[in-house]
């Protein structure tokens, strides 16, 4: 399964998915046989607001080319307000990453409900395409982690 030198770039994507909506949405996408690239690695979190900015930076440090956070739609949070806080935090963080020169297409937040298997698959396809077009993450990786 080695990748040849002339094979096209396939980005590594980390997707943080909230347990209640988006992870179920991913499940639905799977059981509905809606395809999305295998390069998306899903990490299940109890709520989108569990995702600490360090999780995102760490993912990039360890070689991720793009990081996406998926949670319940605003107003639908299992814990009522978690995603509202997540929304503000991620807005701040993404703005800062953009500010220090990290391509802003590498980060994204999407609200995906348990019923939106199709949206999940479409979102991932779109995000992977976007990150693919940006190429490898070199600005926010740790040189000691060779890929």
């Amino acid at each position: 399964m080695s990748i040849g030198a002339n094979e096209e770039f396939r980005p590594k994507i980390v997707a943080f998915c909230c347990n209640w909506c988006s992870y179920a949405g991913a499940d639905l996408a799977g059981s509905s046989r809606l395809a999305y690239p295998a390069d998306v690695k899903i990490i299940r979190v109890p709520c989108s607001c569990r995702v600490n900015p360090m999780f995102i930076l760490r993912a990039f440090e360890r070689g991720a080319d793009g990081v996406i956070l998926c949670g319940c739609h605003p107003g639908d949070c299992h814990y009522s307000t978690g995603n509202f806080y997540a929304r503000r935090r991620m807005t701040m963080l993404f703005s800062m990453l953009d500010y220090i020169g990290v391509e802003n297409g590498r980060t994204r937040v999407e609200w995906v409900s348990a019923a939106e298997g199709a949206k999940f698959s479409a979102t991932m396809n779109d995000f992977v395409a976007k990150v693919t077009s940006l190429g490898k993450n070199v600005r926010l990786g740790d040189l000691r982690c060779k890929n």
Partner: protein
Amino acid sequence: MYKIAKENLSALFQKIAGDKELYLPVKNGGQTNYAAWDETVEVDIDTLKTVKSAKDAFFPQFETLYNVKREGKKLDLQQEALKDKDFVIFGMKACDIQGVKVLDNVFLSEPVDTYYAARRAHGIIVAMACHEPEESCFCKVFGLDAADPSAADVATWMVDGELYWKALTEKGEALTASVKDLLTDADEAKVEAEKAQIRAIVEKLPYSNLSLEGWGGDATDVKFKSPVWETLYKGCLACGTCTFVCPTCQCYDIKDYTTKDGIQRYRCWDSCMYSDFTLMAGGNNRTSQLQRYRQRFMHKLVYYPANNNGMYACVGCGRCVEKCPSSLNIVKVIKAFENEGGSKA
């Protein structure tokens, strides 16, 4: 003695860098620090003191010791290669060179630190006299001569737009020979005048007459138990600025960085000012900042001299004087003890 015009220095640097690595003061983002030379860097030999001392050249803030790979139960260990190429460090001042001597006593004593020893063996020190010493300098207190840095391989003086160059050791002679075609013969008259001028300024520096009386290897009991520390440390924020800009601080930490390709074991500078410096799973023997603050100065002015024939682990570079966020420094410590029991400063 030789000389070279200041405008020709870049040719000199180019020549040296041809077959050796060259480190010299470089300005980056408004701050001058030692860095590797290439055509693109902004060389700054006019700034008297680099922010960090030159100790990085011999004892870098970070270095890999070895790499370990794990395969199942098995480990495979590879020591990092030692420095095997000569390098020149240009522009070191007398205080920084003395700083390296202080480190020598630690790293070259048994068991020898081979990483450090390799760098020392391959390093060629081109020293520079301190053209205009500043008010924070007090190297005279430690018997150093800012006007004549004699502990180097080559000594240089910048006088009236010309760099005077004098080889002091075999290594220095060899380096001189390799750049000879860029140098012209010079007499020492101007250098002697410069030396006299520097020494005259040094005499006038506010800290030049600081007294070290009462310090030294025998002072452990008296100094350690003094109540003076109780007020001295109060402003300390427990950051590591003083230790990281200091040419003689040599405490280090050893840590691992794990990647999927293996484990990198590295060493990095550490600071006795940090609260976790002495923290163990089983407890901590220095729990207050008073203790940590006291440790730093006791080490420099008492413990180190006790173990090294009276040599102090301070060289009077004055970096801590300039950089401490709370304006605390070793001079204030020394003075506070001068005044112990006496009247105000």
